[in-house]
């Protein structure tokens, strides 16, 4: 890790230091997979949320957008148009995952995220914001050619992974820090009594979010208070652990435990868990992706010889 003074002297060193293109590819593939799952889960409700005949009034959405409305659904709000946009987006996400025309696909995926969030601000959830931010960061990142479907089909003949600028990864990592620390700081600067006295999780477990709400929650108040405090500590610690090379796996483990824990006790927050775990791929290092590739190759050869 360079020192802060070195960062200040030379931001170019920070942003342009070479990095393994396979890390970007890992982010691209996992991001596209989660965004595609989000789209597939939205598909049955597309007319409810995005068409002019649905729940969300277009004029109200336009009036709500500040400083102005930016959405492809503003061009046409018919049921056929909504279906077409989502179909094209699904295709773009598959292309992004495969690394074919990845820059154009990433651009469309950003347009999709901006568009549906502007058109339907009412049903949005936390994972939409995460995917929205990463869709921009994926677009401005090096795409690479090594972990793509065409390269895979050719068996990576004559190819070795490229060394590319790491600016996209730096911004992605910073985005993850913002995500956690903004939440932590919001509770410090605007103290909430329920986070402070440890009752937050008890109320959460009795709310509509909870998978098993019931009187049983009232009997575990002390335990849930400890978990409430532990969640706040984890949110503060996860970005630090992820950023430091030696502790990044501990950070990933702690974050995974936190988000899978939320996913287990909460109903219908699975996509938030997946979106957050997706962001951790930006903290991978050269040795991680090289090791993963070697492991897959060994398994592949073993499978082929058997």
């Amino acid at each position: 890790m360079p020192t802060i003074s070195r960062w200040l002297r030379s931001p170019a060193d920070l942003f342009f230091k070479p990095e393994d293109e396979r890390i970007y590819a890992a982010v691209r593939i996992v991001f596209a997979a989660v965004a595609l799952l989000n789209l597939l889960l939205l598909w049955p409700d597309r007319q409810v949320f995005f068409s002019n005949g649905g729940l969300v009034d277009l004029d109200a959405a336009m009036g709500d957008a500040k400083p102005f409305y930016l959405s492809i659904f503003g061009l046409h709000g018919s049921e056929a148009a909504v279906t077409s946009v989502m179909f094209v987006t699904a295709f773009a996400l598959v292309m992004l995952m495969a690394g074919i025309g990845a820059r154009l696909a990433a651009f469309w995926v950003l347009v999709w995220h901006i568009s549906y969030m502007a058109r339907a601000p009412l049903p949005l959830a936390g994972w939409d914001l995460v995917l929205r931010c990463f869709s921009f960061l994926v677009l401005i990142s090096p795409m690479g050619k090594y972990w793509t479907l065409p390269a895979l089909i050719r068996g990576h003949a004559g190819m070795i992974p490229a060394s590319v600028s790491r600016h996209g990864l730096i911004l992605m990592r910073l985005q993850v820090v913002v995500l956690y620390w903004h939440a932590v700081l919001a509770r410090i600067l605007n103290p909430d009594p329920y986070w402070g006295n440890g009752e937050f999780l008890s109320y959460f477990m009795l709310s509509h979010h909870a998978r098993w709400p019931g009187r049983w929650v009232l009997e575990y108040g002390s335990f849930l208070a400890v978990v409430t405090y532990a969640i706040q500590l984890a949110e503060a610690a996860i970005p630090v652990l992820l950023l430091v090379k030696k502790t990044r796996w501990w950070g990933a483990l702690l974050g995974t435990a936190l988000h899978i824990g939320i996913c287990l006790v909460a109903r219908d927050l699975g996509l938030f868990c997946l979106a957050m775990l997706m962001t951790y791929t930006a903290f991978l290092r050269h040795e991680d992706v090289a090791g993963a590739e070697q492991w897959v190759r060994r398994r592949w050869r073993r499978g082929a010889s058997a």
Partner: protein
Amino acid sequence: MRSTSPDDSLAQDSAPDAGRVSPGNPWPARLLLVFCCWHAAFLIYSIIPAPPAQNKPGHPVLDFYRIALGGRQQWNMFETIPVLHSLDVRFEGVDRQGRETIVDPVLPGFKPLPRPESARYYNAFYRLLLAAETVPFRDAYLRKVGPLLAAQRDPTAGETWTLVVNQEYTRNLFHSRRGGPISVLVSKSFDISTPDGDTP
């Protein structure tokens, strides 16, 4: 970076798509660097949440950047407790003979709210009907359903419609531990013929 084996090596690839900054022309690199510094500063600035009362519009340029590129960066999810134990929404109609009809609230087609509650439907209806900052959405929804209900029902029946929102609020833990239910029902209704005037 070590270059010990093909699996473990990295090429100093200068292909345009590989994200390498061409040494021949420094301007793309300079522009990219300026942009990265700006976006990093934008993100660092976003770590500090705005005070709750500061819901006034921000600077138009920054707002445009948030919408088009940077994202809204509002990460204070679950800033306080979720207060609702459950939410139910329906239209109740009464005709001239006093007969009651119930119609589901999801447009298009007046479909029922999915059960168990999905996060998206819960968010949509909570914000549509109960949030103070989204009143234009509620008014537009109520204006829209009036003619739709009239079109799909018998126009001679003379039905009058009310949107009923049943909210179960989680009771204070102290009181719940002393007995009684864990939530209390609070109903709110909106007159469809005069959607702007809600009747709690």
